[in-house]
């Protein structure tokens, strides 16, 4: 753990350029990839909590996400199959008619850092593509994000298709993005809604821990 002390300090002080070389140095000294992953997840959690408390804002979350992605890319090839345990599978995307990706991307990185397997379908995703991915991956969580009301009808269509295929009870649906509201989520028949990526993560945690 001593080896990771400096890495942790660099990560938590957002020393973006120094984090990568420190990873390489630690790996050379024999730090295991699994230990790195655990440390990164702890750092992300700390940063997320500060965001939640209003001490940090979006830039901190974004930069932390970038550092996490960088570290992940370095250590993933080195991870043993048994090291990479997933806490759940999430399918994510911006529905057809909308090409905004900011909130979705931040949420995706946070979810991945939290141990979820994330299948990000990108933007302007047709309803059937969500269904296909849910079926092929067996994901139990679906996140749809939108910034414009054009995405409302496709979101509703996805939920209708889930019901039609008898999958609705097996998939929890969370809606996110600036144009969404809790009233709108109720109207569309979603399970949850948020305008905040970190709050979204907390909601998804309740899905994976309680199954509700």
């Amino acid at each position, binding site marked *: 753990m001593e080896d990771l002390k400096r890495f942790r300090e660099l990560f938590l002080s957002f020393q973006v350029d120094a984090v990568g070389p420190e990873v390489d140095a630690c790996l050379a000294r024999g730090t295991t990839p699994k230990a790195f992953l655990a440390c990164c997840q702890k750092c992300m959690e700390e940063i997320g909590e500060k965001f939640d408390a209003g001490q940090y804002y*979006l830039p901190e979350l974004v930069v932390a996400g*970038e550092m996490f992605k960088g570290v992940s890319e370095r250590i993933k090839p080195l991870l043993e199959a048994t090291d990479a345990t997933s806490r759940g599978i999430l399918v994510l995307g911006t529905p057809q008619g909308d090409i905004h990706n900011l909130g979705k991307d931040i949420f995706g990185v946070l979810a991945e850092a939290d141990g979820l397997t994330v299948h990000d379908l990108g933007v302007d995703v047709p309803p059937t593509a969500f269904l296909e991915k849910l079926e092929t991956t067996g994901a139990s969580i679906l996140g749809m994000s939108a910034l*414009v*009301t*054009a995405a*409302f009808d496709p979101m509703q269509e996805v939920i209708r298709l889930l019901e039609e295929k008898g999958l609705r009870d097996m998939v929890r649906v969370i809606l996110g993005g*600036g144009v969404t509201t809790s*009233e709108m989520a109720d109207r569309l028949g979603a399970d949850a809604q948020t305008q905040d990526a970190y709050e979204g993560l907390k909601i998804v945690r309740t899905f994976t821990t309680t199954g509700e």
Partner: protein
Amino acid sequence: MNGTSGKKIHDKDTMTAEERLEAVVRLEQPDRVPLSMMLYYYNPFHTGQRMSEYMAKPEVYRESSRKVYEDLGPWDIYYNINPVSRLLYSYAMMMRYLYPGIELPDNVMAQVEEIEYMKPEDYDTILQQGYTFNDVRFRMRMLPRFCKDAEGVSLALLWPTLARDFIRQKLFWKKDLAWCQEEGIVMQIGMQAEMPFDLFSMARTVVPFSLDLFQRPDKIRRAALRLAPSFAEFMIWVARLMGVPRVQCYCHRTSNSFISPRQFEELVFPSLEEIVCRIIDAGMTPILHCDGDWLKNFKVLRRLPPKKIILQLDGLTDIYEAKALIGDHMCLFGDVSAEKLALGSPQEVDETCHRLIEEVGKEGGFILAGGCEIPYNAKPENLKAMTRSVYKYGYYEMKSPVAAEIPVPTPT
């Protein structure tokens, strides 16, 4: 500058729309709450025109927007958003627009594609240049990097093309202005543009700009401040040319949904203050289009001159809290949510508008409007309910339920 014909749009009105708007900006209580419908993408869906035609042909836009006003109006403030060209719109907003019928299917809204077209060294270029026309030169340098209609076009050709489009816009708005005067309503904007800090955020895109905030914050602050005078002067010049004394300043990325209050105060406020004060000194009204949640920025925003500014909210700032925190300093504009207009019922819209009028409109300083633009899929009956609400509940000397019986007038 934008005097109406003196015509009143409702029998019960004792003020013209212009007088009403000026009164609320001064935070005075007018005869009734004014209404602005920020309609753009909604219009062609209402009138059955193709979005691609509506976006490409100013005369189609005109026909469509007039028909919507006939069907759902009258309202006090006409949202003259329509650009005569994508090039001109891109110059003002500095975003890459994908248009229906060109990059997108024929009958969908235009979309913004966020691409990183500004590099870190562009901050240095801004700082190395003087103040004169710095903002204009910066925008012209950037245009070919992101605007579909400017890609590969030399600056020598871009200048005259843009000048031609400015003239076309002026001529188009001249007719709009004449129509507004006939109807007794006012045009909302004489010019609009993305503010420097927000422009950098968009142009760098979220991840690189977030890194910039850690790695070169002072350059961001100084570069925004360097662009500010020329930004303001150009906005003022165009607004004068267009004959409308209001300038809409877009702050898409300045809220606490993006940056901290400290970053707002240190990196944004100096340039924002410079721009706003210049616009006010020119005798015009700045309209701050504030996307995201602004509550924590209000303390600093109160340093701007009082009773001179319109603060436009987009549904993410709690407008009721805004009334308490800054309603005695700036005129509030908003804030019927897009979700409510698209999915709600007329009854729900009526209740929302009623509460806004009663609470945010208390003692004046309020313009009823949607949260940002009216969504393209708003229900017409909901927009009708929104219009009706200012005549039902909006008269200051005459509150409901008696006023509830007043019929919605049709424009004459």
